[in-house]
Structures are given as C-alpha cells and as structure tokens.
C-alpha cells in the first residue's frame, strides 16, 4: 500500500504578492505542475509557498521587492495538514514588517518549521562551490534547523554571544585596561563553548547523515557524472585525535587563543569558522569539478537533504522545483524527476506544459499567464 503523504500544503492565499493576481489555490498531495511562459509568474508562485513556510524568499533578501507594485506589503496564508492535523499558516511582510502566525497565534521560524518545511530546487547558483565557507555553513545549518527546529535558538544564542564577545575584543583593542575585560570575555566564552559544542555535534551528525545517503547505491549521487561525490565536515577549532569537541575541550581551546583574539580584536575560534569539504576522488570539487558536475552534485546534495529531513523528522519537506530541466541533460532530468516522485508533495514550475501532458503522476496542473492562475485543460 502506498504510504500517505505526511505533510501537505492544502491551499495558498496570495494578496499583493509580486505579479500574482490575488488568489486562492488548492494543492494536492503528490505532483503539482505549474506551467506558463517565462516571466508570467510561475516562480513567483513557488516563492509565495516558500515564503509562507520559511518567512523568507529563496530569490532575494529584500522583502520590499516582494509586494506588488503600488503596495507596501503583502500577505500569504495557507492550510497545511501535518500528520493528519490541520494547521493554518499566515505571514504578512513588507518594508520593516514581518509577522507570522500559526493557527492564529504569533509564531516564529522554529514553530512554523515544525509544521511545514520547504526545500527548493532552483537554478543552482553554485555558491556552495564558488562561495565562501559561510555559504557552506548555511547549507548545513538550514538542513539542521529543518530537522531540529529548536536549533534555531541555539544558533541565535551563539550569534548573540559572539557579537557580545567581538564587542569586548574590540574594546580590549582600543586601549581600555585589558585585565578588566578578561573576566567578561571568559563569561561570554562560557556561553559560546556551550552553544559551539551543540552546533559542532549537530553539524557532525548532519554531515554524517548526508554522507550516508550520498554513498547509497541507486541514490541521489548517481546523478553526478564520474566518481561519487563525498563530503566531510571541517570543524573549527581542530582538536587532537580522540577529542569529541565537548564543552570543556572547546573552552580550553578558546582560552588557548585568548591572547591572539585580544590582539586581533575579534573572535578567532569557533563554529563560525567551520567549513564543509565536497570532494570527488579525493579532489576538492570547488577547484577540480566542471560546472556540470557541480550542478549535478548540488542537486544530489539537495535530494540527500530531503531524505535526511525525512529520517530526522519522520516526514518529507514540501519540494519546490523551479525549472530543473534547464540545468541537466534530458537523461539526468528524467532520473532526477524519477527520484522526485514519491510519497511527498512536489510543486514543479515548468516552461513546457506539453512535457507534462499525459504524465499520469501529475495530480494537478495549473497554468500561469500574466499573474493569473487557472486550471490547465
């Protein structure tokens, strides 16, 4: 028997979002296709679903770019069924405004993620390879928070303590008597060592889970031409063999660098310097892989993320697929889409309506034209 989809976005209400006409859309469990010519609003519709779940866009960091021209804000709403319980999500945002609700009460990312998480497959920007370590940490952290929403608080506390510590280090550099600051630095290091140990443990675990999925036969790594890609976590600070990265060990590592930190005026140790290595046959893919291999690896990693999310939470995230077909050759696209049909909900935006005609997996096909959404017939 086919297992029922655990998490389903049942509907979406859009008001004043991008070029979309104000609308109410019903989604189905399984494969939903949105087709239309480029520039008509397919991706905007995916973006609206993503924003509803995650409180941000996957295309821009500028919230004020999202309201329809002439409006200062937009609102989105939707019904989600999660483990057979129905929930109402809402978000209202614009310049200087971001309010979320879950079942009518004020909510935050952590709470909302517990009900609906999203994963996007969009034109890969390859920041994972071409960007800095912060891009790779973000890739890990978003996956971790998706699987363990309460980690939102740990990351927030870590960032806050780090900012406090950096301010102290800056003061220490600016000729205040350093001795008076040392005890305060130690107090914030205490906080940091605690959050750092948790973040380190979670990242290590998450990379291990991703690695296992990548190593599977017939798994997502099959999409990548050549040898199977592998990943490894590079925590900071590196500790001696046998050390687990406990709070006490990290505290000692922090203290060891305290003088350097005071001299440099900013924090030098901690998970804010972690990195992730993605390699193929022992060679760093950022340096040695072709753009095609990198793109395929990115998609494979995203698929692995999805499987790990299922492993961690018991349900799949909502998948949003934006024109993956443009990025891979036909054979791999078919393979990717084969992997994409399973007991989960997928919304695919595609420029070609014909490609889906007659595809029996499609349970709903919508068409977008000038921001107006209609049933495809």
């Amino acid at each position: 028997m086919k297992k029922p989809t655990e998490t389903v976005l049942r509907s979406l209400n859009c008001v004043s979002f991008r070029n979309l006409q104000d609308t109410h859309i019903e989604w189905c469990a399984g494969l939903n296709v949105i087709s239309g010519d480029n520039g008509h609003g397919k991706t905007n519709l995916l973006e609206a679903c993503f924003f509803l779940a995650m409180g941000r866009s996957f295309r821009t960091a500028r919230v004020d770019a999202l309201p329809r021209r002439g409006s200062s804000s937009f609102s989105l709403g939707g019904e989600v069924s999660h483990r057979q319980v129905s929930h109402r999500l809402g978000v209202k945002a614009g310049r200087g405004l971001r309010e979320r609700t879950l079942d009518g009460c004020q909510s935050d990312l952590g709470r909302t993620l517990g009900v609906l998480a999203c994963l996007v497959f969009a034109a890969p920007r390859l920041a994972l390879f071409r960007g800095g370590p912060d891009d790779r940490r973000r890739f890990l952290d978003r996956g971790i928070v998706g699987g363990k929403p309460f980690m939102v608080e740990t990351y927030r506390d870590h960032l806050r303590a780090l900012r406090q510590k950096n301010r102290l280090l800056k003061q220490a550099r600016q000729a205040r008597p350093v001795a008076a600051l040392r005890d305060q630095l130690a107090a914030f290091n205490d906080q940091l060592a605690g959050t750092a140990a948790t973040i380190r443990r979670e990242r290590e675990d998450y990379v291990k889970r991703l690695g296992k999925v990548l190593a599977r036969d017939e798994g997502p790594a099959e999409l990548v031409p050549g040898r199977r890609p592998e990943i490894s976590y590079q925590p900071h600070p590196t500790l001696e063999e046998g050390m687990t990265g406990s709070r006490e060990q990290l505290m000692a590592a922090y203290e060891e660098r305290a003088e350097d930190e005071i001299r440099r005026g900013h924090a030098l140790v901690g998970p804010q310097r972690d990195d992730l290595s993605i390699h193929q046959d022992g060679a760093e893919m950022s340096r040695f892989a072709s753009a095609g291999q990198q793109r395929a690896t990115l998609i494979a990693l995203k698929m692995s993320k999805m499987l790990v999310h299922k492993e961690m939470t018991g349900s799949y995230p909502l998948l949003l697929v934006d024109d993956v077909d443009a990025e891979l050759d036909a054979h791999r696209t078919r393979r990717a889409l084969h992997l994409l049909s399973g007991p989960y909900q997928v919304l695919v935006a595609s420029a070609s309506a014909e490609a889906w005609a007659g595809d029996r997996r499609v349970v709903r096909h919508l068409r977008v034209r000038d921001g107006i959404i209609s049933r495809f017939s």
Partner: protein
Amino acid sequence: MTSFPGPVARLIDEFRKLPGIGSKSAQRLVFHLIARPADDVRSLAAAVADLEEGVRPCRICHQITDIDPCAVCSDPGRDTTVICVVERPSDVLAVEDSGEYRGLYHVLHGVLNPLAGIGPEALTIAALEQRLAPGTVHEVILATNAGVEGEATASYLARRLAAGDLRITRPAQGMPAGSELEYTDRLTLARALRGRQNMD
C-alpha cells in the same frame, strides 16, 4: 494632518518612551486621561511626581524602596546568610511571590551587555562584594534571566565572587509546574532535559 496641541503631543511623546507603548497606545492613553475627571488626572500626576521624590534604591540591596533600608533588609526574620542576586527590582517581587525564599536580595539593575555599553561597573557588583566581605553570607543564588546576557552575567559573577567556602548556586531550569510535556515549549524542555536529576 493637523498636529496635536502642544501639551497633548508632549504627553504622547513621554508615554511613547515607556516599554511596550507605541504611538497608537500612547495616543489612546492621553485621550483617555483627557476624558477623565480632573481629580483623577491630578492624582496620577502626583503619583508620578512622588516617584522622583519618595523612591530611592535601598542602600544595602539596591531594591527600589520608599524606606531605607528596604522592608526586606530591615526585617529581622530574614535569613541573612543567603543572598539572591536578580537583574531588576521586579524580579524581587517575583521571587517573593514564590513564598519559597526567606533570605536577602541584591538587585544588579541590569546585566553585562557589551553591545549596549554595559560593563560590570555599571551594575551594583562592587556593593555586592562589600556585602560578602565580612563572611557572614554562606550562599549566593545567581537568579539572572536565562538569556545569553543573563547567563554570561551569572558566569561572570560566579568567577568574581568565588571565595573560601561561599556556596554559589543558580536556580534549576525546568518544566513549569502543572504543565504537560506536549505543550511545553521546546527550549524549556531542552533545558529541563539537560538539568535532569536522579530520582531518589
């Protein structure tokens, strides 16, 4: 838009400086006052003026008080060997309401917050050290709040105050009484799990 008459605008501005009050609420409060009988308004104004005149920090524990030393510090029935350190004056009332505590207090009037420019010298820590100097206090309870700054302040104080056999403790963090596991927020639950105890 026409602006409010001078005195109205001034009072709205003053109300807006209060925590949790935005422009709309400030306006509502002011127009509510305008509609009240003059005696009510005068009595409010007098109460506000008395704050300046009649209230000061207790010279021992720094709690806000109208008699100095405050009611707790001058109560002979209190246990003078324990001091509970809190962030704000209102925290004293919260601990008192628990009915669990008979010791003394010390109000820090804030927590360490380098980003806001608040260091130890801006808090009442030196005064706390003076109270501990004679050695008659056996336990200090660090009851600062559980956020990053509150925790860091507790950890700072634990180091700075450590001396001899002075016992330094921090209140346990756990499940709210009468709460069901399912409805406890996850941060509280995570902390409660971390601070779990043997059943014996």
